[in-house]
C-alpha cells in the first residue's frame, strides 16, 4: 500500500509506526536478518503498509470462488473434515490386512497401501535376499496377494491411495480383485499416488522404474484407461514431496510441482484429450515442513497460481479443473533420531500448518518414522494428533483462519512471485520434462540441499537434540526393532513360487505377448493389457520386466 494511501485511510499510522520502529531498534540489541527456507527475508512486524486487502476479490475472494486462495470449497473443513489417510505397509498381505482392519474399524473411510522396497525396484519377492523383504512396505506381487491384503475391505465404499509408480500394477491387481468380487469398477475410488514419474526421476530414484519416455507413454495410457473404465479414480497425483525431501525449498517445490502438472496437462492435450476431463482428476501430494507460516503461504500461493494457469494458460473451462486438490504428509525429513518423542510435537505443528492451509487429506507421521516403520502404538498417536487438532483445538471451525494476516498475505504474495519466476525459467528450458532430462532441476535442488545442510552444521539452523540441547539426549529405550516375521515371509515367498508353477502358463504367455505388442504400438492402450495380465495371474515383476525391455529401463540421472 502506498504511503499516501496509508495516510489517507489511517491517519497517524506513520507516526505510530515510526514510534514502534524506534523503540524496537532501541531494545532489540543486535537485529539479525531472518530468512525463511525459501530465502525470503522475514520482518519482525507486518502492517497494512505491507498488505491491506487491495484487490481483495481478485486475489483472495471467498472459499470455493476463483482463484480459490482461501480454499477450493465453500465449506472446507467446517463442512467436511479433511480425510485422514494414514499410510500403511509392512510384511505379508495378511500383516497388511490386520492393520487395515483396525483402521477401518476405527471409522476410517480411506486407506493407503505402500508396497515393499522390492516392489519399488520392480522385482518379485523371490528375486531378492529375504532379509530385505517386507520391512518398509507390503509384499504384493499378484492379484491373489491383493485379494488377501484386502480381505473384508469394502472396495466399493472406501477410497484407496496406491503408492505405486508406473506401471501401476497394484491398481491392476485391485481392479482384478474387484472383478472377482462382482464390484463394478465405476464404484472404485482412489488415487495413483505416485504417478509423477518426472519427480521420481528428479528426486526419488527408489520409485523410478521405466525410462522417462516409457513412463510418459504408460501414464497417458493409464489416464485414458481410468477415464473410460474407472471414472472415480484419480490417475494423476503430481508430487512435490520427493523434491522437498531432497532439499528443494518450499518455493522451488511448488514451482517445480506446478510446472510438472503443466507438462502432464500439455501431454494430455497433445494426445487429443479434453483438458477439463483430465484436470478434474488431477491431485497433488506435498510434504509439510515445520516452517509453519511458510508452508501455509506456499499452499495458498499454489492454489492461486494453479487456478489462474489452469484457466488462462491451459484453457480449462470447468471450475473443477481450477481447483488445487492436495494431500499433505508431515515431513519425515524434519524428524530426528535423537530424542524421538520430540517428533510428536513436530508432527503436530506440521499438521497444523497443513490443516490451516486447507488441505484435502492428511497423513501424520509416527514419531519413530526416522528409525523404523511405525508400530501400532506410534501409529495410534499419529492419528490421535489429528483428532486432537480437530476436536480439542477446533482447527476446523474457521475457513482459512490465517487469511487476512498481514504477514501471511504478504508472504503468500512474495512466494507467489518467486514461484512464477521459476515457472517461467522452466518454460524457457522447454518445460519440466526437458529440464529434468537435462539435469537442471536436480542441480538446483542439490544446491538448496547443500545450503541447508551447511546451515544445520554451522548451527545457524537449529535442530533440537541434534545441534543444540543435546545434553538432554537420553539413550533410547532399547526397544527391539520390529521386523516382519521372517518365517512367515519365507512361507509367503514359497507359496508365491508354488503359485507361479501352478497357474496357467499358456494364459500368462499369451498375456505377456499381448502386452509386448501393445508396448510396440502407438494405437493400443498398454494399461488395459496390464490389467488383463493381472487377471490371469501375471506377476508384478513379470509385467515390469517386460515393459523395461520394451520401453527402456529407468536409469536416473545421477548428479553429485
Amino acid at each position, binding site marked *: 500500500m502506498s504511503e499516501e494511501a496509508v495516510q489517507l485511510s489511517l491517519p497517524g499510522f506513520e507516526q505510530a509506526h515510526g514510534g514502534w520502529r524506534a523503540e524496537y531498534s532501541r531494545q532489540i540489541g543486535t537485529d539479525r536478518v531472518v530468512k525463511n527456507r525459501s530465502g525470503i527475508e522475514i520482518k519482525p512486524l507486518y502492517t497494512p503498509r505491507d498488505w491491506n486487502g487491495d484487490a481483495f476479490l481478485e486475489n483472495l475472494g471467498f472459499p470455493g470462488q476463483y482463484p480459490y486462495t482461501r480454499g477450493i470449497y465453500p465449506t472446507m473443513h467446517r463442512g467436511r473434515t479433511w480425510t485422514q489417510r494414514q499410510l500403511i505397509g509392512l510384511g505379508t498381505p495378511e500383516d497388511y490386512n490386520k492393520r487395515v482392519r483396525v483402521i477401518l474399524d476405527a471409522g476410517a473411510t480411506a486407506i493407503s497401501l505402500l508396497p515393499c*522396497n*522390492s516392489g*519399488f*525396484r520392480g522385482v518379485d519377492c523371490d528375486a*531378492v*535376499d529375504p*532379509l*530385505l523383504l517386507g*520391512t*518398509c512396505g507390503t509384499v504384493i506381487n499378484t492379484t491373489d496377494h491383493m485379494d488377501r491384503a484386502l480381505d473384508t475391505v469394502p472396495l466399493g465404499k472406501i477410497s484407496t491411495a496406491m503408492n505405486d509408480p508406473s506401471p501401476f500394477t497394484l491398481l491392476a491387481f485391485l481392479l482384478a480383485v474387484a472383478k472377482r468380487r462382482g464390484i463394478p469398477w465405476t464404484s472404485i475410488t482412489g488415487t495413483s499416488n505416485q504417478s509423477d514419474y518426472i519427480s521420481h526421476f528428479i528426486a*526419488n*530414484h*527408489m*520409485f523410478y522404474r521405466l525410462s522417462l519416455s516409457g513412463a510418459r507413454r504408460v501414464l497417458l495410457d493409464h489416464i485414458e484407461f481410468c477415464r473410460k473404465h474407472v471414472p472415480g479414480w484419480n490417475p494423476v497425483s503430481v508430487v512435490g514431496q520427493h523434491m522437498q*525431501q*531432497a*532439499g528443494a525449498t518450499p518455493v522451488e517445490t511448488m514451482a517445480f510441482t506446478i510446472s510438472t502438472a503443466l507438462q502432464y496437462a500439455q501431454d494430455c492435450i497433445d494426445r487429443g484429450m479434453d483438458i477439463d476431463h483430465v484436470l478434474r482428476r488431477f491431485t497433488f501430494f506435498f510434504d509439510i515442513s515445520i516452517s509453519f507460516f511458510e508452508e501455509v503461504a506456499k499452499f495458498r500461493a499454489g492454489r492461486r497460481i494453479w487456478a489462474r494457469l489452469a484457466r488462462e494458460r491451459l484453457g480449462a473451462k470447468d471450475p473443477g479443473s481450477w481447483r488445487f486438490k492436495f494431500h499433505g504428509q508431515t515431513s519425515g525429513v524434519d524428524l*530426528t*533420531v*535423537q530424542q524421538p518423542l520430540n517428533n510428536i510435537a513436530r508432527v503436530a505443528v506440521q499438521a497444523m500448518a497443513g490443516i490451516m492451509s486447507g488441505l484435502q487429506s492428511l497423513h501424520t507421521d509416527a514419531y519413530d518414522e*526416522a*528409525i*523404523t516403520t511405525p508400530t501400532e502404538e506410534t501409529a495410534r498417536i499419529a492419528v490421535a494428533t489429528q483428532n486432537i487438532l480437530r476436536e480439542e483445538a477446533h482447527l476446523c471451525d474457521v475457513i482459512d483462519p490465517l487469511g487476512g494476516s498481514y504477514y501471511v498475505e504478504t508472504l503468500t504474495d512474495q512466494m507467489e512471485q518467486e514461484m512464477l519466476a521459476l515457472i517461467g525459467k522452466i518454460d524457457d528450458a522447454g518445460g519440466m520434462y526437458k529440464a529434468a532430462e537435462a539435469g537442471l532441476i536436480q542441480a538446483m535442488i*542439490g544446491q538448496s*540441499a*547443500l545450503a541447508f*545442510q551447511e546451515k544445520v*552444521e554451522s548451527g545457524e539452523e537449529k*535442530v533440537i537434540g*541434534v*545441534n543444540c540441547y543435546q545434553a538432554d539426549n537420553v539413550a*533410547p529405550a*532399547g526397544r*527391539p*526393532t520390529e*521386523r516382519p516375521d521372517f518365517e512367515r515371509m519365507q512361507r509367503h515367498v514359497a507359496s508365491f513360487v508354488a503359485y507361479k508353477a501352478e497357474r496357467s502358463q499358456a494364459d500368462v504367455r499369451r498375456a505377456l505377448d499381448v502386452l509386448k505388442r501393445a508396448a510396440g504400438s502407438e494405437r493400443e492402450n498398454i494399461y488395459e493389457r496390464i490389467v488383463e495380465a493381472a487377471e490371469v495371474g501375471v506377476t508384478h515383476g513379470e509385467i515390469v520386466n517386460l515393459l523395461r525391455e520394451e520401453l527402456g529401463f529407468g*536409469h*536416473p540421472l*545421477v548428479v*553429485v
Partner: protein
Amino acid sequence: MTVSKLDPPARVLVTKIGLDGHDRGSRIVAAFLRDAGMEVIYTPPWQSIPAVVKLAMEEDVDVIGISSLATDHLIVPKLVDALRSAGLGHIGLIVGGIVPDDERPALLHAGVSAIFGPGSPRDEIIAHVAALAAKVREIKNAEFREIAQ
C-alpha cells in the same frame, strides 16, 4: 575444515547395496569427502555385491562407505565375506544411515569400523575415513616397498 593429506589421495567408494534408494545423504557425504581432498567413486543405489567387490578391486579403494536405510545393513556381513574371499579384506569399511542400536554390535563384529547415524558431524566422518585410509595405505605401501628390493 578437515583435509586428508594422503598422497596419492585416499580413494573411497560410496555406495548402496540392498533395496533402498534414498541417496540424498550419500551424495552429500561424497561431496564433502571430495572437498576434503579424497577421490570418491560414487555409485547409484542397488549395487549388487559382486559388482561392489569387482569395483573395489579394480579401483584399489582404501575405504568403502555403505549408505544404509531400511534393512540394507543386514546384508553388509555378506559383503564383508565376499570382500574377504576376493582377497580384499584389508579395505576399511564404514556404514552411514539408520541402524537400530540392537543390530549395531553384529555389524561391528563383522568388521565394520564405525557406524555414523544421521546428524553425525561432517568433520568426524572425514577424520575417521582419512585415518582409516591412512592405515590401509600403510599396508599397501609396505607391499610396494618389498617389490623395490
